[in-house]
């Protein structure tokens, strides 16, 4: 494995965290002020070529104390199949005034990632933080000093424990919504007085644990605590852990952990099925073609441990050590450089007082989808300074939640570096390594003037009759989603975008305080659009009641609100739920008509009791 690959993989992980919650909101929301532009109707077809092939992204990092100097800014392009060439990412540092400029960038969706030790990026929870930029754009990044959790780790006799790793896991955001489960394993430890101090935390709630996750079983290290499972604050297991909340810039002290030194169990088994990579002759190995086994804590759906299986001759086996008693989900995955990844269906395992053996996992080939982005230019043209490029738009195939209970993202899959795709200049894009299940295509269009017209897949031909010639059918993937079976290689998925998108920015007015989980919907008025799910949009509201919609097809809409937390996208996709939503919106009868390229601002929406 080359040096560069290692570097890029590491970078790939950095990029994943902002992505995670960006796509938590399915509708892309633009924070920028958009100017109304006159609609011009043209019939000419043009290529989506930017005027200038290269440009710069500039920006500024500010904190509560003013501009932040010396912030490391990494810009990474999202590209087809993540074929980032070793030279693709760039790194600069902010100057004394907190400014930065990265020049000589090609057209792409550039992910701008600021890193300043001890600082966190401020994200207002109701607005998708824009972390992708096009060349020519300017980024304003707000960072604040992260929160601190501090305390001591003591044994049962009250003596300090030295050099115990202490970690936190993010479980809830400041609004109490489930967090990403992100953890900072391995960075912090107690000193010779048993004191630890974890800093740089986003505001929210955490569980704090002493001892290395996974118990260090296979590592056989020299730490006295290897082989133990973590003890959670105050003297608990994961199931009984007490959450600790911290505000950004705040300090939560006295989080003393009484270390239990519980011993972990092992989970082991064989891996069968699509163990070998068929398209690529390299057999699985530790260098990137290997099999990994992931252990998730079932109740919290957080990754607890992961191991890599070295291919040896014969049936591969795996073992995960240092597992505390509890209920888990084990999954095996084989990541191959070729298009032949495989994953096993998750297996539930109950660990209780002894090792769990014979937990065999069967690898099934994963699916892939090849798609093409097309631009329809004949509908409308907005006045723009710079034409958009296909490479600047982002797409993701998101698995539909199977249990339907929460909108929690499938963390593991989201982190996969190839889950987010930017098309090539030709519009081609590929989604790989997809598990079995139903998927929906979501987009983050970086051009404000584009909206999605249709997402279709060619179906079977309708046979010619005496009266009509043979006609190809299409499946509306936007509405029906995409059902993937193991090993499917879907081609021909067509995504049509058009210029002329409208946008609405407004504010909810109410006599009473607004519920934080209020959601605003846009519902098409035209009857023939009733089943065009692309005409349905939804968004959350900011603390001040403002909301924003972008990438809207011109037309007539009803605005309506709901207090709900479940998966809105899934509701829109469901015929009955969609009809219900439409009846509600019709009854509320708040109509807005949007012209091509229109930017409707300061829209007031009165909330009725």
């Amino acid at each position, binding site marked *: 494995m080359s040096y560069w690959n290692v570097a890029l993989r*590491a970078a790939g992980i950095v990029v994943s965290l902002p992505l995670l919650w960006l796509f938590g909101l399915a509708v892309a929301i633009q924070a920028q002020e958009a100017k109304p532009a006159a609609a011009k109707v043209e019939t000419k077809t043009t290529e989506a070529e930017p005027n200038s092939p290269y440009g710069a992204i500039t920006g500024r990092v500010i904190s509560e104390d003013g501009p932040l100097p010396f912030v490391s800014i990494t810009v990474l392009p999202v590209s087809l199949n993540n074929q980032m060439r070793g030279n693709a990412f760039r790194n600069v540092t902010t100057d004394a005034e907190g400014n930065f400029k*990265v*020049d000589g960038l090609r057209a792409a969706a550039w992910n701008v990632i600021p890193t300043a030790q001890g600082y966190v990026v401020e994200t207002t929870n109701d607005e998708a933080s824009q972390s992708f930029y096009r060349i020519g754009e300017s980024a304003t990044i707000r960072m604040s000093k992260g929160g601190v959790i501090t305390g001591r780790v003591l044994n049962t006799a009250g003596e300090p424990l030295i050099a115990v790793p202490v970690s936190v896991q993010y479980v809830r955001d400041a609004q109490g919504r489930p967090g990403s489960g992100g953890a900072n394993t*391995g960075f912090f*430890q107690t000193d010779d007085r048993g004191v630890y101090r974890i800093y740089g935390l986003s505001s929210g709630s955490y569980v704090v644990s002493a001892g290395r996750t996974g118990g260090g079983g*296979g590592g056989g290290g*020299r730490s006295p605590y290897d082989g133990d499972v973590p003890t959670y604050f105050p003297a608990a297991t994961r199931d009984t852990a007490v959450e600790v909340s911290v505000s950004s810039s705040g300090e939560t002290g006295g989080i003393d952990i009484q270390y239990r030194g519980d011993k972990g169990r092992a989970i082991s088994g064989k891996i069968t099925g699509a163990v070998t990579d068929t398209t690529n002759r390299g057999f699985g190995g*530790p*260098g990137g073609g290997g099999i990994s086994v992931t252990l998730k804590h079932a109740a919290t759906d957080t990754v607890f441990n992961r191991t890599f299986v070295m291919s040896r001759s014969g049936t591969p086996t795996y073992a995960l050590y240092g597992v505390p008693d509890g209920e888990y989900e084990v999954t095996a995955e084989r990541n191959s450089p070729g298009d032949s990844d495989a994953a096993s269906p998750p297996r539930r395992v109950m660990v209780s007082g002894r090792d769990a053996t014979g937990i065999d996992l069967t690898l099934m080939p994963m699916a892939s989808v090849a798609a093409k982005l097309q631009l329809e230019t004949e509908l409308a043209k907005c006045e723009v300074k710079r034409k958009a490029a296909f490479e600047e738009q982002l797409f993701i195939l998101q698995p539909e939640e199977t249990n339907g209970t929460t909108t929690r993202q499938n963390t593991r899959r989201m982190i996969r570096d190839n889950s987010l795709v930017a098309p090539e200049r030709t519009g081609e894009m590929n989604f790989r390594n997809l598990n079995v299940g139903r998927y929906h295509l979501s987009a983050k269009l970086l051009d404000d003037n584009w909206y999605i017209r249709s997402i279709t897949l060619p179906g079977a031909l309708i046979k010619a009759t005496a009266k009509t010639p043979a006609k190809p059918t299409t499946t509306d993937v936007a509405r029906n989603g995409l059902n993937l079976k193991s090993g499917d290689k879907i081609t021909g998925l067509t995504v049509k975008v058009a210029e002329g998108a409208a946008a609405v920015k407004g504010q909810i007015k109410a006599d009473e305080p607004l519920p934080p989980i209020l959601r605003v919907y846009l519902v098409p008025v035209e009857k023939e659009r009733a089943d065009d799910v692309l005409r349905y949009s939804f968004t959350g509201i900011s603390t001040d009641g403002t909301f924003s919609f972008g990438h809207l097809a011109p037309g007539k809409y009803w605005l309506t609100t709901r207090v709900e937390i479940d998966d809105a996208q899934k509701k829109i996709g469901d015929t009955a739920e969609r009809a219900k939503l439409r009846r509600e919106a019709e009854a509320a009868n708040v109509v807005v008509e949007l012209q091509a390229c229109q930017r409707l601002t300061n829209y007031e929406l009165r909330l009725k009791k």
Partner: protein
Amino acid sequence: MHFGRIHSLILLLCAATIVSAQTQTQSSLPATASVTGQIKIGETPARGVSVALMTADRRTTPDAQASAQTRATTDADGRYKFANIAAGNFRVTVLSPGYIVFGNSELVRNGQQVTLKDGEAVERIDFTMTRGGVITGKVTSNTNRPIIGEPITIAAVDDSGQQVQFNAPEGVGFRTDDRGNYRAYGLPPGKYLVSAGRGDNRGGPPGLTANRTYQRTFHPEATEESTATPITVEAGKEVTEVDIRMASVETFAAAGRVVEAETGKPIAGVLIAHNTVRSGGGRGGQAQMPQMPQTPGGTDGMSGTEGEFRIEGLARGKYSVYVAQDAQNPLTSEYYSEPATFEIATTDAIGLEIKLQRGASINGLVVLDGATDPNLLANVRINAAVRSSGGGGGGGRGGNPTSVAPNGMFRVAGLAPGRVSLNVSEANNQGPFSGLQILRIEKDSAELQSGLEVTAGEQVAGVRIFVAYGTSSIRGVVRVEGGTLTQGMRLMVTARRTDGAGGSGGRGGGMMPAQVDGQGQFQIERLVPGTYEVSAQAMGGGGFGGGGIGIGIGGGRGGQQPGQQQPGQQQPAQQMRAVPAMQTVIVGNNATQSVTLTLNLAAQPTVNSQGNQPGNRQGGQQGNATNPPRRRP
């Protein structure tokens, strides 16, 4: 009292839980021996201290080493006991960060050697510990901002100020917190240099290094080791306010343009990259790997419409700037660049010119031996490396792999004049060796033995590369002598074809790594017939520990976040630990060849002649206070 719990003499038979399949046999041997001892802190018996008994036999990989570890905890009298142990060689180690075991450093690091016979009870494997000294302080910038998360390095020095080896507490890394404060502990009495930041010769990937804003600075504010103020730590004492004021790195810009050499015409839209050119070698304590003369410094964007480029943020030093090869860009696939070298001292470097020269090309055909699947050729990539005849180093093409047409035709262009070696690889193969190898290379039906000489702009045709997927294999075992592999070390076995193979001539790409199992057995498959040199090497050192999430940064895509690693203790990531064991074998067609390699850990590699290779010093520690083991048959 807490050890009223089973805590006291419990035998943590980790072996039962940890041993993986291939080492299971070990624990099924009769286990009747025992080891006992006492641990004291000063004169007081130390309760609750972890002691590890590690197998020192026949464990050739860290995996197996780890699995052969048994733990015990001392009771109220500081006594520990390992019972029901099978005969063999072991090491007893006290796991007590923050405390120091009096004795020589070998004892501290590797523990007390113990040999057990069946039924034997070895007693009085005693250790006396003392609380380590502490250094604390605050690290700030020259504008009084606290510097957060900065690694702190503690280096022991002797009275003359020369660095001596010192074993920092294992598994412990010191860093500043969010207030800039740090606390280094577990220090034996002695003199230390305390520094924040990393040396400038670290070779981390650009863009991902944590803090390139500040220079490595010693207490109090010395950027040179020679002007650092040493701190004297007395036994178990705490030295406070060892503050460090870090100097920020002054940076400069380099600017110039890219032109076509023949015409002087500016070239727009090519990717600029730079290397750092090292003048001397690294300073003390750093990696003993062969020093790379140039370190990739990252890329610097595309040249503008007038061919112009500008690189910001360069610290003082020597650099070379060039046009990065980009197979997708026709401009660079036909050209090679003559790098512009420059030195930054006190001002920006301006007026640089990178000249693009039209390169030579090689046209030919790839012939896949023994396979009929035409799709296989689509995966083959040709790599060309040029050893420049003109000297001018770095200008050669080491560029992007060139793909092969479905009919086997290929064209490699943009080559600098010189000796070209051709190699093959497989697209998308990031894993281990794929099995694709060159059988021979012909030009005009004559076999090329040592590459192909091309002149400036020459258009070479008629080259045929015969490749095959091998079906032979080498199997073998590595025996380790002269010591045992310590925690974190691992065996690396590679094979390299030494005969023929056309232009590849053993250069790059020719190394085929093997998987080594717990018994030191390895297997290299998919070889074509030929003569191979098989070598075994013990690699690694610190930094590999940890069985938790994030093991192995490159393994799978779940990897590790930067900063998740344990803060390093100036351990190079990959350090050779012994002279490699080598053997040459001849492999026939469709055959398996066996080989045994004996790796002598006692034979130290000869290190580059910098002279600051840390010796086997036993830094600042006192005599052996451990009682000799007394045997009772």
